Structure formats: structure tokens, C-alpha cells
């Protein structure tokens, strides 16, 4: 298991841009089928692209879900005892090669 703290999370439209703390890697997570579960926006992870070392790699994703809380209050996650803080994101996806990726944190930037 590898952990990458202090990543920078930016939301543009329905796409999440996650930049590593050393600014060498950028993970682009394109979401689709966004609907609402209460105040939470729930999307499906559609495509994931890694921009790193001057190259672009498309990462085959099997399935994944993204929860966005763009409200001003913490929201309860569906089927969970946990809450998602305001202006925060929770991402979980599994690649076709079996790598599990989990991202949780507060949005550093959000723009439509």
C-alpha cells in the first residue's frame, strides 16, 4: 500500500485533477452519470488518466464511485456511518489490473 499525503485536489466541471505533493504526477479522474443522493453528488468513475514524466497514460478502470459534497455542511455518506465534510471529495475506484485507489480530502479548488 502506498500513501500520498498532501495531494492537491481540483474540481473542474465533473473532472477531478489530483496532483501529487511533489507536482510530478497528476491524476485526471473524469466522472459521469452524476446524480444526487440527498445533498451529496454521486458520480461514476468513467476514465482515469495519469499525466506523469511528460507522458500520458490511460488507466483502465473497472468501476468506481465519486462522492462530492459541495454543500456548506457535512453530509452522511450512503450506507455508511461516516460523514463527508463540506467541500470534500471521496473517490474509490478499482483498475482493470486490480489496483485499488482511494482518495479522500477537501477540495483545494472548485470551478464549474
Amino acid at each position: 500500500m502506498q500513501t500520498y499525503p498532501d495531494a492537491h485536489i481540483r474540481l473542474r466541471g465533473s473532472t477531478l485533477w489530483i496532483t501529487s505533493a511533489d507536482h510530478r504526477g497528476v491524476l485526471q479522474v473524469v466522472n459521469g452519470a452524476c446524480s444526487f443522493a440527498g445533498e451529496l453528488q454521486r458520480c461514476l468513475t468513467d476514465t482515469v488518466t495519469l499525466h506523469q514524466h511528460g507522458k500520458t497514460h490511460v488507466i483502465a478502470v473497472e468501476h468506481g464511485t465519486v462522492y462530492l459534497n459541495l454543500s456548506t455542511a457535512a453530509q452522511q455518506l450512503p450506507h455508511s456511518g461516516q460523514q463527508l465534510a463540506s467541500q470534500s471529495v471521496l473517490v474509490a475506484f478499482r483498475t482493470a489490473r486490480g489496483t485499488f485507489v482511494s482518495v479522500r480530502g477537501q477540495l483545494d479548488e472548485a470551478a464549474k
Partner: protein
Amino acid sequence: MKRRAARLHAAWLILALPCAALAAPPNRPQPPPQRQAPPTRVVQPPPTRVVQPPPRQIAPLHVVQPPPARSSPPPQGFNFNRDINVHTPPPSTPARPVTQPSLTRPPITGPGNATGHFVPTPGPGRSASNFKRAPFNTTAHGPYQNHSRGPVVQNPRHWNGNWQWNRGVAWQPAQTYWGGGFWGAFALGALANAVLFGSIADYQDQLNYPSYQVLPDSPGAQLLQNYGLQQTPCGPDNLVVIWGPDNSVICAFPNDTVGPGNYDLDPTTLTLVSESP
């Protein structure tokens, strides 16, 4: 710069490489010590001391690396070495069986039926069991797209304006999911594990359109709830057949609001449009 750094939050991105194949069961007897440690881990004991390895020494690959110190992040960005440069089948050709157990022709009676172009009656001795699975496409609707439209069956919920059912946010299909994700998170790559809920056979083009059970909390479930429809496996005649995004189809029992027949879905207003003029 300090202000910017102060805004950064402890966002964690975790990559867990599957190592189940490398993990030994807890009850498995430990191999002899000389075979247990890889060459790079061998520590030469001092000549005067005999170092016995602990009896339950954990193999090096079992060691879970602690998260790196916050002051020293990984120097090379993200590690996706297992996933980059991997060629997988495109979403349009998911691996799944092409034969279905419950093939039948679509309903051919009722006010909402399609034109004869799509639903020719199967001839004697013709079987749909070998029909190919209908391809996924990126269009907003199924095979009835561009056909003449029939009357709109207004959503009883009476949503005002486009996408109001989705709080004003436009719903866009996710192309790696059956039905774009409208009926739930049915990943195309994992459809072989999903339970079929009937299917529709196109005898003219010899294509098969599988159907799956709508997941709760999905937009499709909201559609069914709004119209008071109850989903049922596709196959029998005289059902409500709803064609959704990307050649997806589900079926439901007719009710006082929606009669039997084929319907197209308008996701903008979450309404059904009959395919019969």
C-alpha cells in the same frame, strides 16, 4: 505561498496493489528459515553468534509499508506501474456471453409498439440463442433513435425545466457503464457477473439486448418511481419496454399511466416517449 500551502489539506491517495497471491494463509507452516528470506534480506550473523530467525517471521512481502513522513512525499509522483501501458478491451466490446437463456421477441401488440423495422416476427426454426450482443454506443438512446416519435407520456412528478429531477445538473452518461450508469453502476467490464433480468432480441439484425435489474437510488429507479412502474424481466409480451442510454433496455409491467409498448427515454425531463405515433 504560505497561504497556498496552508490551504492544502491532508488529502490522501492510497494505492493498494493486490498481494493476495503473495500472502500466505495464517495457518500455513513456515518454510525453513534458509528458504524464507530472499537473498537481499539475508543478514550475515557474526561468527561467534548464531542468530535464529523468529519462528513466525513475516515474509518481507507481507510488510505493509508505513505511510511516508509528511515531510518526505514520494519523489516520483504516483506509482501506477501495474496499470500503465496495459491494453484492455474497449468498453464497446465487453467480455460476456453472447447467448442468453431467456430470449424472446419484443412485444408486438399495444399502443407503444415499434415499427416493423426493428421487430420482425421470428420464423419457424429460427432461434435467437446465437444472436450477438448489441453493441454499446455513445448515443443518447437505443436502437429506436431517429425513429418517428409518438406521444410523450408526461412524468407524473411534473418536473419543471430541464434536469430539474437532477437538481438542475445535466446528467451525462458514463461510457464505461451499461446504460451510461442511468440504471445503476453496472460496469461493462464486470457485466458477466451481473444477473440478467431478461433480454430483448432483434430478429432482423440478429442482436440481443440484455437487461439488468435497476439499482436503487439510480436515476432509472427514480424514473420507475415517478411513473409508478414495477420492473420485470424482459421477454414476455405486453410489457412496457424502455430504451435507455447506450442501447440499454429495461421492462416493466404496464399501469394506468404507461401502457404496453416500446418507449424511448428523454433524460432531460425524465419522461417517456412512445415509439408509436
